């Protein structure tokens, strides 16, 4: 009798508890790069991304079908090119974006667009990774936001494995060689504190840019000539122009063709702090293995 009574009372209570935990599980809470807390009752089903690396992260985590729009530069994976293109970070098409009724917008820092979107009642998560730690945190934030935090560990483990496999392929003779990685012909370089610089370090390479200069410093061209990098890496077009820059013909790396020229579609992999960092590492390793 007592037992049956217990069952009668306990069963609904247990069921309610289960429901409550379920509801608690469904609610998501993340902190973005502005340190703003974003709380959603359920994981968002309609997502807009305004930066290629964020688009790629959402897809790599397996939530590509939740995307309803992206910025104009997002082009990977191929299926996102069919989605509505909502301009860039600074000329975001507010009306079109709002009409898509996203539950959440993932964006880089840009006060005007973000402010306006939030004023219109949209939930905006600001994420702009610069180092690998930040990229890792971004992956975790997005996975938590989309309701499957464990996916972040899986994805990052895959990236790590890819990077390690790439590092193992780097010829021993190249270990510690100093790299000049050009991200812009101004010239801006990838410093050792940027996610790119960190990737080069993981591959066992050195960097001509000291950490003190920051992630992407603008250098005096003379600095590069004097530093005499052992290896020069850049997008194809820039690398082709380098010997014509005043004094750059004296760069031994250029003379001996110890260079990595990346084709522009593949180069995108390298400069986006997203889930393709592992592939990017493999790209660099391919080049290093093929060097004379």
């Amino acid at each position: 009798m007592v037992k049956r009574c217990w069952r009668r009372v306990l069963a609904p209570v247990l069921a309610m508890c289960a429901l409550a935990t379920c509801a608690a599980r469904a609610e998501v809470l993340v902190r973005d790069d502005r340190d703003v807390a974003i709380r959603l009752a359920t994981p968002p089903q309609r997502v807009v991304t305004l930066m290629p690396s964020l688009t790629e992260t959402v897809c790599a985590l397996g939530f590509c079908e939740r995307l309803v729009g992206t910025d104009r530069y997002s082009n990977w994976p191929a299926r996102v090119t069919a989605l509505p293109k909502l301009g860039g970070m600074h000329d975001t098409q507010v009306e079109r974006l709002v009409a898509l009724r996203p539950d959440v917008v993932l964006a880089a820092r840009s006060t005007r667009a973000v402010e306006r979107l939030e004023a219109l009642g949209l939930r905006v998560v600001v994420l702009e990774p610069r180092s690998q730690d930040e990229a890792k945190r971004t992956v975790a934030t997005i996975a938590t936001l989309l309701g499957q935090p464990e996916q972040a560990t899986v994805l990052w483990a895959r990236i790590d494995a890819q990077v390690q496999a790439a590092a193992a392929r780097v010829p021993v003779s190249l270990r510690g060689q100093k790299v000049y990685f050009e991200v812009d012909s101004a010239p801006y370089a990838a410093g050792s504190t940027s996610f790119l610089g960190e990737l080069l370090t993981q591959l066992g390479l050195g960097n001509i840019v000291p950490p003190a200069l920051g992630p992407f410093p603008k250098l005096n061209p003379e600095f590069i000539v004097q530093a005499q990098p052992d290896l020069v890496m850049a997008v194809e077009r820039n690398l082709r122009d380098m010997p014509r820059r005043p004094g750059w013909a004296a760069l031994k790396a250029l003379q001996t063709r110890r260079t990595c020229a990346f084709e522009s579609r593949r180069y995108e992999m390298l400069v986006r702090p997203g889930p393709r960092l592992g592939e990017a590492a493999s790209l660099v390793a391919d080049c290093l293995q093929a060097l004379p």
Partner: protein
Amino acid sequence: MSAQEQRRRTRLAWVLALVALLGGAAGLVAGSEGWSLAAFRTMLADGSAELILWQIRAPRTLGAWLTGALFGLAGAIAQGLFRNPLADPYLLGSAAGASLGVVLVLAAGALTGIGLELATADWLSRFGLVAAAFCGALAGVGLTLSLARGAQHTTRLLLAGVVVGVVLGALNDLLTTLAPDALRGKQAFLLGTTGFLGWSSCAVLGAVLLLVLPPGWRLSRVLDALTLGEDSAASLGLPLPALRLVLVVLMALATGTAVSQAGMVAFVGLVAPHLVRRFVHATHGYRLVASAAMGGALLLLADVLARTLIAPQELPVGVLTAVLGGFYLLWLLHRREIAG
């Protein structure tokens, strides 16, 4: 004033009012999908009208008109003040100042490493781009005024404006070199866009227009007197330096507000007074008001075009006004050459 001139003025006023109304209606109908009445009807039916029409299109349309009106007004004041039809509202360092303000805020984070106190940087980045642009514009004009030692001499004022523009521009470049992140924000800001205007922007723009237009209208007789030359104007017993200072401040207020809300929209301030002069030969009182209405009408139409020309993509309205305004000026030059 001849009856014919009176008729022309009335006609221009009606045309400008009509363009504003039609442009406003077009601004409400033209959406991100271009001109589509079907889309408009579905939007009214599915309940998103409040959000899309009232929260986005309406303030954007009104905001475009108000921004254009401020630029038109500032342009008319500038051209009257300097007695130069090529003077524009950016002349006295407001553009360079606004741009520097924006870059300062954008670079604040990066600059913490290079000597700025952390507290200052935090305060600066909270300050917001809009306020920074506004203060920058006023500071630029203030610097010009102090370099020119007030507004007594037009030439000195003009030269000081050029110098301030160059120096602030250089500072600007220096900052973006030290903090490259600020560069893309600056470029976006320089582009000029009406896409982010909301009701709060409209309130600010409207309030400043209401604040600047009445005193501008009252002081228009100073501009009329100046058309006779500085000496003649002074001989009329007008306290020229003080009045000119007030006009410069009004111009800076109008420009600074418009720039801070919509960025550097090119050519509206230059072209609007030109167009008004083409149609009527009025005194400055009418000219200021008409230039404001003309500027509003121009930017409103440009905004509707920017939204619809390549819909569903969008052109930055600043690019469109620069192209249209540039061609208008070229055409004007060409005609003058033929006539001359």
